[in-house]
C-alpha cells in the first residue's frame, strides 16, 4: 500500500516538473488532488484497510497531499510572476560593477614587453639604485665623459646613484650569462631635471638588447621595425638616423612619422613631420670588454625607449605630470 502511495507521489512530481503553463498545472492539480484524484480516493477508502495500517498510511497520504499541493502553489506563483513582469524603461542607466584598471604606463609597458616576448626576449629586472660603475663606467662613460652631462644624475653617496637609464641591466646580465642573449628590462629611471610638461625627474624606460655571433645592424633595424609597426600600426613610417651614445657604435636614433599631423609638420613634431621615439645602436666593443666578452666573436645591438613618451603619443596627452598625479578622473580613461 505504502509503495502505491510513493509511486503516485513520484509520478505527480515528475508531471509537475514537466508542466510549462498555468493550464497544464491546473490540469495536473485536478488530476492528482481533485475529487476523483488517486490520493482523494485513497483517503476515502482508508476504512477498507487493516486497522493497524490505517493511521500511518493515512498520515503518509495526507503528507503527500499537503506537499504536493504546496509545490503546485509555489510553481503557480513562479509561473504567474514570470508572466506578469512589467515593462522597463531601458533608457535608464545600467548598474555598473565598480571597475578597477591598470595605470596607462603599465598598459604601455605590457604592450611593449608583449611584443618583445613574442620575438623571444625575456624580462630581467635591475636595481633602481646603482653604482657609478654600472650606470656610467662600464657603459664607456669614464669620469669626465661629455655624455655624463646629458644624463644629469641624482646621487645618494659619492658612488651610488639613482640609475639615469636602464642600460646598466646590460652589464648585470652579460656579467652573469654567455650569449645567445635576448633580454628586455623595464622600470623607473631618474634624471636631475626641472619639472615641466615634458620633463620629470622620474620616468619609465624599456631597454632591450641581443647578443650573439653574427648579430648585425640589419637585425637591429628588423627587430625595431617590427616593434614600432606593432605598437603604432603597420603603415607607420620609420626612419633610422645616425646619432651618438657612448655605449653603442654605430648609434641610431629612430623616428616615426608624426602621428598627429601624419608627417605634414605640426607643433608636436616641431614642423619636422617626425617624432624621435627611441635610441639604439650596435653595442660598443668597450662595453663587451667591461663584461669580458670577445668583441671579435660576439656582436649585438641595444635600444632604449621612454614609455611616457609613447603613452603621450598614443593617447594624445600633452602634460607628462598627469601620469604621477594619479587623478582617478585621469586613470579611468585608460
Amino acid at each position: 500500500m505504502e509503495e502505491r502511495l510513493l509511486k503516485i507521489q513520484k509520478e505527480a512530481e515528475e508531471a509537475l516538473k514537466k508542466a510549462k503553463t498555468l493550464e497544464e498545472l491546473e490540469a495536473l492539480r485536478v488530476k492528482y488532488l481533485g475529487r476523483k484524484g488517486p490520493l482523494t480516493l485513497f483517503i476515502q477508502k482508508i476504512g477498507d484497510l487493516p486497522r493497524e495500517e490505517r493511521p500511518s498510511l493515512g498520515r503518509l497520504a495526507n503528507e503527500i497531499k499537503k506537499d504536493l499541493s504546496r509545490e503546485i502553489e509555489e510553481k503557480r506563483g513562479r509561473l504567474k510572476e514570470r508572466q506578469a513582469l512589467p515593462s522597463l524603461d531601458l533608457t535608464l542607466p545600467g548598474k555598473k560593477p565598480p571597475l578597477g584598471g591598470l595605470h596607462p604606463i603599465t598598459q604601455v609597458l605590457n604592450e611593449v614587453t608583449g611584443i618583445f616576448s613574442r620575438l623571444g626576449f625575456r624580462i630581467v629586472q635591475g636595481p633602481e639604485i646603482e653604482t657609478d660603475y654600472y650606470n656610467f663606467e662600464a657603459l664607456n662613460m669614464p669620469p669626465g665623459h661629455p655624455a655624463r652631462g646629458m644624463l644629469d644624475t641624482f646621487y645618494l653617496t659619492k658612488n651610488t646613484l639613482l640609475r639615469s637609464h636602464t642600460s646598466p641591466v646590460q652589464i648585470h646580465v652579460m656579467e652573469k650569462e654567455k650569449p645567445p642573449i635576448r633580454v628586455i628590462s623595464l622600470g623607473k629611471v631618474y634624471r636631475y631635471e626641472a619639472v615641466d610638461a615634458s620633463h620629470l625627474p622620474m620616468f619609465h624606460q624599456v631597454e632591450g638588447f641581443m647578443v650573439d655571433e653574427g648579430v648585425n645592424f640589419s637585425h637591429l633595424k628588423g627587430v625595431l621595425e617590427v616593434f614600432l609597426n606593432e605598437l603604432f600600426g603597420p603603415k607607420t613610417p620609420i626612419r633610422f638616423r645616425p646619432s651618438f651614445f657612448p655605449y653603442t657604435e654605430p648609434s641610431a636614433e629612430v623616428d616615426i612619422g608624426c602621428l598627429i599631423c601624419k608627417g605634414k609638420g605640426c607643433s608636436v613634431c616641431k614642423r619636422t613631420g617626425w617624432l624621435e621615439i627611441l635610441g639604439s645602436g650596435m653595442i660598443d666593443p668597450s662595453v663587451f670588454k667591461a663584461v669580458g666578452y670577445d668583441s671579435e666573436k660576439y656582436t649585438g645591438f641595444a635600444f632604449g625607449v621612454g614609455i611616457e613618451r609613447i603613452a603621450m603619443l598614443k593617447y594624445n596627452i600633452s602634460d607628462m605630470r598627469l601620469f604621477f598625479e594619479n587623478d582617478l578622473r585621469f586613470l579611468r580613461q585608460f
Partner: protein
Amino acid sequence: MKVPLSWLKEYIDVKLPPRELAHRLTMAGVEVSHIQKSGNDTILELDLTTNRGDCASIIGVAREVSALINRPLRPPRISEKDKKQKGIIKVEIKDRKGCPRYTGRVIKNVRIKPSPLWLKERLKSMGIKPINNVVDITNYILFETGQPLHAFDLNKIKEKTIVVRRAKEEERITTLDGRRRILDKSILVIADGKRAIALAGIMGGEATQVTNKTKNILLESAYFDPIVVRRGTKRLNLFTESSYRFERDVDSQGVLTASRRARDLILELAGGEEIAFVDKNLLSRKPKRIILRKERVNVLLGTRLSWNQIKGILKKLGFKIKGRSVEVPSYRREITREIDLIEEIARIHGYHRIPSILPEGRIASYSQEPFEKLVSKVRKTLVTCGLREVVNYGFISLEEGKRMSFAPREIIKLINPLTERQNIMRPSLIPGLLNNLIHNLNQGNSIVKVFELGRVFSPKKEQMALGALLSGEGDLYDLKGILEALCEELAIISPRIGSTSLPFLLSGRGGEVLVADKRVGLLGEMNPNVLSCFGIEERALVFELDLREFLLGRREKRFRELPKYPAIVRDIALSLPEKITSEELVQTIYSLGGELVEEVKFFDLDRGTQIPSGHKGLAYSISYRAENRTLKDEEIKRLHQRISLGLEKRLKARIRK
C-alpha cells in the same frame, strides 16, 4: 649651433633647397632641429651630438656637406708666414695636460674701432653683440673655424709673461661679464707675471680686455683639454661659445690656422703690424692610423660593400687610405678605432640603405622569470577587485618620513635633491598613496580605491612592494577580503593579521600580515593623527606587502576531484564574549566536528540589542560532507548538536535560535 646658409656658401657650392639640405645633414647624423628664415638668408639650427665637435663651425659643416654632395670645399685663403721674433712675450705652460698647445701672436699699433657692417651682421646672425673690430674678429673666427681665440691688451700684461697654470685656492678674477669669481685648483687659468688674467678656454678677464684705447694686442689660440674645461664650466656654472667648443675637442692643427686667419683679418680691418709669434706645442704631430677590414664592416652592418665603396666614403670625409691603413684627419680626434670608422661608413652610406632583417639563429634562454608572471597576476586580481593602479615617484620628503615615524637609520637621503619634497628614497608606498588620496579628495573624488606596485628602499635592500588604500567606501573587512582574494588567486596560504601595534596604524585596528607565521607586511586603519599631519580628515585603510616574501607562501595549484556525494549545510548562530576571536571559534568547530566538517563559513556579525554587553553575535554555515557516502540527516543532526553543546561548554557561547 646656427648655420646661416649665406655664410656656408662661402666655402661650399651648395644649391640644394634648405629643406633638402637639412634632411641630408640630419640623415647623416648632423641633426638640423630648425630651419629659420632671416631676411634674405636662411639659418639652419643644428643639434650636435657631443662627439661631433668638428661640426661646431661653419667650415666644419661645409666639410660635412662637401662629403654629402660630393663637391670640393673652398677654405679661405690664409697667409702662412709667422714672425718668429723672440723676447717680446714669454709663454710658460705649467699644466701640460690642461694645455698641450699654446700660441701667442703680438700685433702692434692696431686701430680699435667698430667693425664693418658685413662683420657686424654675421655676428648678429649668430646671436652675438658686436663690440669692436679686434674682439669681433676673434668671435668671427670662432664661428668660422671652430677654434676659440682671445685677444689681450698687451700693455696690461704684467712682465710680458703668459703662464698657463691651475688657479690658486681662493684666487680671484673679474671676468668679461663683469662678475667677480673665486677660483680653486680645479680651474685652469691664463696668468701674467702677477695674477690670473683669463679662465682658460672659458672667458677672458676684465683687466686685460681690449678697449678703445688698446694699441698692442696679444692674440691667443690654444688647445685646452676637454675634461679640464668641462670641470671648470661645471664648477663655475659658466658656459660660453668658447667652452662649448673646447669641451667637444678642437682641431689640434686648427689652432695655428685660426690664429693666422685672425691675424690676416686684423691686419686688414684694424691695421697694425705683426711683430712676434710663439708656438708651444706638446701635441703629437703624428696622425692617427687605424687598420680597417672590409669583412668586419659588412659583418657588423649586414651589408655587402666593396672596398672601393668603403674607400670612396672615407676619402670624401678627408681620411687618407694606404692599403688597409686609414689615416684620420686632425679634426676628427674622436675616431680612434675600427668601429669608429665603420660608423662613418654606415652614416655616409645611409642607414636607410642597410636592409631590415629579423634575426634567426640560436634560441636564447627564453623562459620568463616566474616572478614576472606572478606580478602580472597580482595586478590582474587587484583590478578584478575594483582597484585602480597608481604610479608614484620613488622619492618622498623627509618630512613625510617623520610623519610616518620611519626610523632615521632606515632612510636613504639624496645628496642633490631637486626639491625638499623629494629628498629621501621611499621606505614605504603608503606616503605616496596618501598623497594620491589628498589629490583626489581635493578634486572631489571621494571614493578612492587604489594600489601600487613599486620598489621601496632601505640601506640594506631595495625590494618590490605592493600597497593598497581604500577610503570613502568599505571597511577593514573589505580590505582584508581583497588580500584574501589575492591569496586565493595566487594559491597563497591564507594570511593572518597579527596584533603587533605599528606607529602609523590605529591600535586594535591593524597589525602585521602573517603568511605561514612569517611577517610579510601590514594591514590596518591609518592612525587619524598621522592622517591629520598629511591634511586628511577622512578615514583611510591600507595594506602593504613585501611582494617577494608574500609570494614565497605560494603553493602549486593542483586539481582536486570534485566531491561525489552531496553536502549538508547547517547554520549556527551564537553569542559569545568579545575577547574570543572568530579564529578560535572556527578552530573549535573543526576540532569538535572532526573530518565530516568540510567548511565553516562566516556570514554574520551582530551587535544588536539582543546581544548582552561584552558579547558579540556571530553566525556561521557549517558544511558537512563525507568522501565516500551520502550523509544521513539524522547523523548530522546529532553531530551539529554535539558541536553546539561543545561550543557552549568550551567557549562560554550561547546558541541563539
